[in-house]
């Protein structure tokens, strides 16, 4: 076993790790606003007459979905833009619960971003004019982390305020169902 072996193993290991995580912690400070507006209304899982058309996933999903600084900025916005007033720390109240696995209008990040931007008929305000798309997507990334969707390495275990739900780092990951029914 020549001494060349450990050098190669080290390099391969490093390269693999590089692919795995190099972008997870990149702090994208957007000096240019995010491209086009949030897609009109990516519909939640429903029936597509005549067979399902494969919807191209929104390109921004992977930029925001597991990005730790984006989720942390989303947490800042969640508190300061008064989302906590209606949804509390995920348990709900005026608004529906966000830590469970039921999503009326879809649990994917682009669907949540669309709910935030468009608003929903039963009282969810439309934030399109108040928040930029970048902020909306960061909020959506944080909302997904409240129900344990993104990977555990990208979420914060707690905030510097009263401790509420179980830490996101310990939350079991439940697949998102579009099963909840809006009120009459």
């Amino acid at each position, binding site marked *: 076993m020549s001494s060349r072996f450990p050098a190669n193993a080290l390099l391969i290991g490093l390269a693999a790790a590089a692919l795995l995580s190099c972008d997870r912690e990149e702090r994208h400070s957007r000096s240019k606003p995010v491209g086009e507006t949030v897609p009109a209304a990516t519909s939640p899982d429903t029936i597509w007459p005549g067979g399902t058309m494969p919807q191209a996933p929104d390109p921004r999903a992977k930029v925001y979905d597991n990005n730790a600084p984006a989720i942390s900025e989303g947490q800042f916005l969640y*508190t*300061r*833009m*008064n989302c*906590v*007033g*209606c949804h*509390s*720390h*995920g*348990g*709900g*109240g*005026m*608004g*529906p*619960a966000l*830590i*469970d696995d039921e999503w009326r209008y879809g649990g994917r990040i682009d669907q949540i971003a669309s709910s935030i931007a468009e608003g929903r*008929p*039963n*009282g*969810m*305000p439309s934030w399109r004019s*108040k928040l930029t798309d970048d902020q909306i997507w960061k909020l959506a990334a944080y909302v997904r982390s409240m129900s344990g969707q993104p990977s555990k390495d990208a979420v914060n275990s707690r905030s510097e*305020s*009263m401790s*509420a*739900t*179980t830490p996101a780092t310990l939350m079991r990951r439940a697949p998102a169902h579009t099963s*909840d029914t809006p*009120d*009459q």
Partner: protein
Amino acid sequence: MTACNRSEKQPLGSAEVYSTIPAGNHAVAPPGASPRDDGNWVMPGKDYAATRFSGLNQITPANVDKLALSFTFSTATTHGYEAPPLVVNGTMYLITPFPNYLYALDLTKAGAPIKWVFKPKPLAASQGVACCDTVNRGAVFDAGKIFFNTLDGQTIAVDAKSGQQVWRTQLGDIQKGETITMAPLVAGGKVLVGNAGGEMGVRGWIAALDEDSGKLTWRAFNTGPDKEVLIGSRFKPFYAMDRGKDLGVKTWPPEAWKIGGGTVWGWVSYDPETNLIYYGVGNPGPWNPDQRPGDNKWTTGVFARDLNNGEAVWFYQTTPHDLFDHDDINEIILADIPWNGARRPVMFRPARAGFFYVQDRRTGQVLSAAPFGYVNGYRGVDLETGRMIPNHDKDPKEGRVVRDICPAAPGAKDWNPSAFSPLTGLVYIPHNNLCMDFGAMEANYISGTPYVGADVKMYAGPGGNRGAFTAWDPIHQKKVWEIPEDLPVWSPALVTAGGVAFYGTMDGWFKAVDARNGKQLWQFKAGSGIIGQPISYRGPDGRQYIAVVAGVGGWAGAIVSGKMDPGDPTGALGFANAVKDLPMKTTAGGMLYVFTLPR
């Protein structure tokens, strides 16, 4: 400060007697504001004195155990049902929570079929600014018309016979976060309505509409300059702390009064002899006291105004610079009490901060104030200055959680009104026993979104029971008997001349207890938790009927009606933590139950 923390654990549901009923000379209802019972139930408070006392006496402690179901009716809504059914000459009217349907049931026919349904179609988005469930606290019948408010801030008058709309006036603006949930009060040709939305940073007001045309006659704001608060030369508050020019502006940081809350979403009483209306004002916004230094006039206090022109006559601030969201909107029961030899017109107020106030209703002077629940957030009321003395080591602090504040934000008793029986002279108080951890933070104001600035976690108070039904002697300020309940008692009370008191529990038990000693005589398990007002009326066949609507919800029941996840203790502004077990004890619903004695 007396704090009755029970040492031994008392069995839930059974009464503990503390003292005897005062013989003979005790409080009575004022004749003007509380006329003889005519068997109808035309307003939530039964009468202008808000006694919620029914003069019928067919049902007595002896025969109440034979009460049987007469008929039921489903309202097709599943949010908190806080309103009473109204009964007017053989027709029962039901106003439901959002979307606020108005049903008319014909009591003369068997099974009370529907005569007509009026659908006001309020804006669906108004559900997004209703802080504590999309409830409605009741309609009112007067001069052939039914008056009620819709969640999106409209007051509507409907012809009682035909169900056709007479007039509709838009008063609130949901874009600013305003909703209306209170039951109007109709008196002297005027309909009195106030807005809700203290948690949304609105500016509170009370308005009077003309009964026939629905046009706005006057509107009095609860913050801002004296001109807009309709404070003029007649205004003579009893205590020095409430005197001063433009206190609605001076006791706030600049501009903060414009988003300072002070809403009117509770109960209004009226005294025909003095033509004065009495109502309580809600909490200042935001909940975080550090963000609004000053007394924050005229929030969390009681106003007395002239009915015709709305001019303020006196005001008493119960909690200056409110610390724990203790809105002062609870019911105001008018009564006359023996006072060294003479009869003194007073008002009873089992207030949210946990003190039972007896105040002279002509001047607002506090005659006595004693805690009717466990209180450690305040040291007591200083009768010279009238000022509530807070307990400073429970003061909320930004950036640090203050623990074990009792009573919690919903107070020792929230909006659910108590009943007063002139026969026993006691006030029957359905209330909570909750404490809380309070984490204040800076609140950011965006119109139409919540403006709270606090994380709260509530839990059961001393003794472990989360609620109680208490009979209170207002003269000696003493508890006569008390029934501890497992869950907070969020249903209003009813007491009848027959000597029976009725109330409901949040897990669906409708209970009848002896008004004298609190012994439980009868109970019925309804389909959903009961937070609605029970009523007693004389049916077309002359027999006494008891009616109540079971539909859990409101702030306490939001965890069920709002389909919340109990995993977050701060949900529903902190109430979720206190009632984590409620979803296992009741489901949402909206069913009317009417009981009577079998023939």
